[in-house]
Each structure stands twice: as C-alpha cells, then as structure tokens.
C-alpha cells in the first residue's frame, strides 16, 4: 500500500556551464528517485548520465511495475529485496555505460555518478556510486545517508583533512568510484526507516558546492512542498555562483495531516 509521497525533481545547468551533464528520473508510482552527474569528453557526460537514469528507470519499471515484483536471482539473501533490486538496477546501468563506452570511441572514458532511491512512506533504500548525495531530513535535522566516493571524501573519512578543508581542496572532483569506468562496480546500499514528515533529498554535487548544509536544512524545514524545496535550493545554488550543473530531487512523506484523527484512522487501518 503505497501512500504516495510528494516527489519533485529538477535540474539546471547553472550559471557557468554551457551544457547540462546531469540527469534525473522520478517515478511517483514506484517511489523511485535517481540523480546522475556525468563526466566525459564533450557531451559524453550527458550520454552517460542519461544512460544511467534511463536504464535504472526502465529496469525499475520492468521489475517493480508489473503485477509481480522481480528480484534478481542469486543476490545476497541477508539483504532485503529492495536493496537487491536497487543494486541490480545500478549495476545494470554500469554495464550498459561501460559497454557503450567501449563500443564507441567517441564516448571512451565516459562515466557518471549516480544516487538512486526507492521510498515508500515507511522506509527508504538508497544506492549510490560517486559523489552525488542523498540526505534524510528527520525531526528537524538533515543527515547525509551516503558517503562520497571521492579522493577528498576518503581523506575526510580517514581524518586526514577536515570537512572545511575538503570543500576548498582543489582535488575535490576526483572520484574513486563511478559508473561506466569498469566492468563491475561496487555499489553502496543502505536502508532507513521513514516517518511522517520526513524528507528525502537527492542532489548532485552542484548543490553541495554552492550551498552550505545548514542552509539546505533550513530550506527543507521551512518549505512546504517538495517542489518548493527543490526550486528554492536551485535558486540558492545559482545565486551563490552556480558553478556546476545542479540537480535536486526531493520526496516528502506526508505528515500526520489530520493530526490525531488521521493517526487514529491510520492506526486502525494502516499499520
């Protein structure tokens, strides 16, 4: 029973870049959110990121949209079905991008980051490769639920440099993992419970580079709808310079609107 989440996504090339190599996909029915940031010569980045979002969406539709939910065989049984599915979609996207890059010299070397999530009103599953991020807003606090697969992110994690230094590092954009780089890719998957009023935020690094986490948190807390959140954040990113393409997808779990009564009703019927 999928109470529909309020999902909205948008992308903007920013103020500096002539083209947009980011891509995103949302599917309210499946509860699917995807953001990808591509890299590669001239517009290969766009090809890669579009391949990523399109492939993941296609496979999600085929494996989740039908009357039965398909789970990839041979997965790790200790993980939940959704985690295995999401990982499968991401890995398939990797294969497609990798092979395409191999087949077309002009696309050689193209790759993309990706962060994808499946959400319903109870829980969230997130899979990602690269330095596009997913955040979870709960109880007034904005918490990242992904760790960047980047050189700088690694350094921060190992305590070699601080977060502030990281944001100033000139090596910020070097990734340690990306889709399309190799035949196989290691995907990070995690699961989180969701509560009414929570907000899930997926964004390419165009946001993080321009807007401080506090400002993001404040925006998420104050804006009423996903659409408002996304539009406000994009505007903030551009106001701060818009150095990179910025793509944001937000999904909010409907709060206990009717208050007690809704809670009561949902308790009788909804648990």
């Amino acid at each position, binding site marked *: 029973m999928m109470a529909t989440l309020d999902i909205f996504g948008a992308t903007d090339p920013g103020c500096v870049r002539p083209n947009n190599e980011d891509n995103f996909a949302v599917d309210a029915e499946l509860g699917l959110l995807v953001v990808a940031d591509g890299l590669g010569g001239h517009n290969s980045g766009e090809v890669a990121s579009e391949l990523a979002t399109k492939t993941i969406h296609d496979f999600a539709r085929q494996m989740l949209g039908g009357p039965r939910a398909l789970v990839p065989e041979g997965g790790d049984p200790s993980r939940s079905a959704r985690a295995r599915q999401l990982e499968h979609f991401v890995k398939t996207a990797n294969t497609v991008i990798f092979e395409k890059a191999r087949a077309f010299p002009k696309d050689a070397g193209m790759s993309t980051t990706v962060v994808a999530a499946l959400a319903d009103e109870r829980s969230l599953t997130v899979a990602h490769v690269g330095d596009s991020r997913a955040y979870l807003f709960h109880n007034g606090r904005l918490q990242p639920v992904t760790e960047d697969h980047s050189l700088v992110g*690694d350094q921060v994690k190992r305590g070699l440099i601080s977060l502030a230094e990281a944001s100033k590092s000139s090596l910020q954009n070097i990734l340690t993992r990306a889709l399309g780089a190799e035949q196989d890719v290691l995907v990070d998957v995690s699961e989180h419970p969701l509560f009414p009023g929570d907000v899930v935020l997926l964004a390419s690094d165009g946001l993080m580079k321009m807007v401080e986490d506090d400002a993001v948190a404040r925006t998420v807390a104050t804006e009423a709808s996903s659409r408002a959140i996304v539009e406000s954040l994009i505007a903030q990113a551009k106001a701060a310079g818009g150095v990179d393409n910025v793509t944001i997808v937000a999904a909010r779990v409907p709060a206990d609107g009717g208050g007690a009564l809704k809670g009561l009703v949902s308790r009788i019927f909804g648990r």
Partner: protein
Amino acid sequence: MPKLLLKFNAAVIKEVPFTKDSLTVGRKADNDIVIDNPAISGHHCKIALEGGTYYVEDLESTNGTFVNEKRVKKAGIHHNDVVGLAKHALVFVEDNPEPVAAPAPSAAPADATMVIAPQKQAELVAAAAGTAKDSAVNGKLGVMRVLKGVVADPEYKLTGLSTYIGKSDRVQIPIKGTGLFGSAPEVAASIHRKPEGYILRAVEEGYPVVNGVNVNGQVLLKDGDLIDCGGTTMQFVMQDAG
C-alpha cells in the same frame, strides 16, 4: 602476449594465446589453429606479427578471410578486431588495449589520450579496499554486542553510515520490548558514523538509555558504553577494522 578467441557463430569455443609471432589457421592438421569445418580451407589464413603490428593474411582460401566483415587479402588487426572465416571468427585480444578501449585502471590510461571533463575530473581508481576498512573510523570499527535480550544476532558490526535500533522489521538491530505486551517503539534510536566517532541519536526521545542516562538528543559513544533499549542491553565496542 595477445590472444585469439575462436568463435563459432558468436560463441567462444577456444582461447588461443600467441605463443609465437605467427599463427596459421586452417583445416589441415599442420596449422597452429585447426578448424575442422568444410567451409574452412586447408590453409586458410595466417596471423603474424610484423613490425610491431599484427597482420592477418589470407592464404588463397576458398571462402575468403574477413576483418570486421570486410574481405581482405592482408590487413592489420588491432584489439577487438574480428577475423572472420566462414562461420568462424577469431577475435584478436590484446593485453594492453589501445586507447580505443575504455581506460582500464592500469598503466594504459596514463598513456592514452584521455578526455576528462573539466571542473569534474573523474578519475577511476580500482575499487577501494574492503567495506570494513572503508567504514572504519580511523581504522576502528564500531560493534554492538547484545548482552541481554538478544533477538537475532548477538553482535552487530556498525559498517553502515546509519544503523537503526528498534522493534520494527525495518531496522538493523532488533530489540525486545518491555511491559505486558512487550512493546517498544518501531524505531527507538539510530547510530551514525561520523569522522569523530559514532553518535547515538534518540529517535524516540528519552527512550534509549546510555550508561544509565536517558538520551533525549544525541550522544557520542565511547568504547564500552552500555546502552539499554527496551528489554535489550547492548555494549558499544570499538574494534580494529579487519
């Protein structure tokens, strides 16, 4: 040393490494690669190294020798080229593919002319070390040991960025409830891995108890801290990452 993949109708049936500089292909037994098929001539073609490049030369075969679908008499072949002989094919595979192929994380990419997007140079290093190491905070990994009220496992490694504790089936660490009906919040607390260590956050305010003190907001866990959640008691321990 490169190698040839012998395919029949696109299915690889044999892998032939180049043990010497030239290989002959044909139906007769004196060939280096023998293909027993009437469409293949006795001596069909030869693949040899000349001046740094490998060439395939048709030896007056009946049905011809093709390179990537083009019939040839003699032509140079490169990585991933397909030498066609009737229904068979030989795919030429080099160890260190030229820049034409996608850059692999070996010395090859460093020498290949690569295209890197600006302001976002994506570099692809071979997959990082094991997840445990990745998840460690300065080389140490947090572990939750369940001392009392075990529901599933007695120990949980805190490898994820966030780990949830509660009664629901959505959490990683299940706990026992208290009271007549054994109830507990669906999600009681969450543990987050940060550069400075592990933080326990009370999702259900006041419910989790750390070292005897009810937690309302969040608290940084120290090695050996005791955490009570409902009917389950756990101990937080920092271990050396494996």
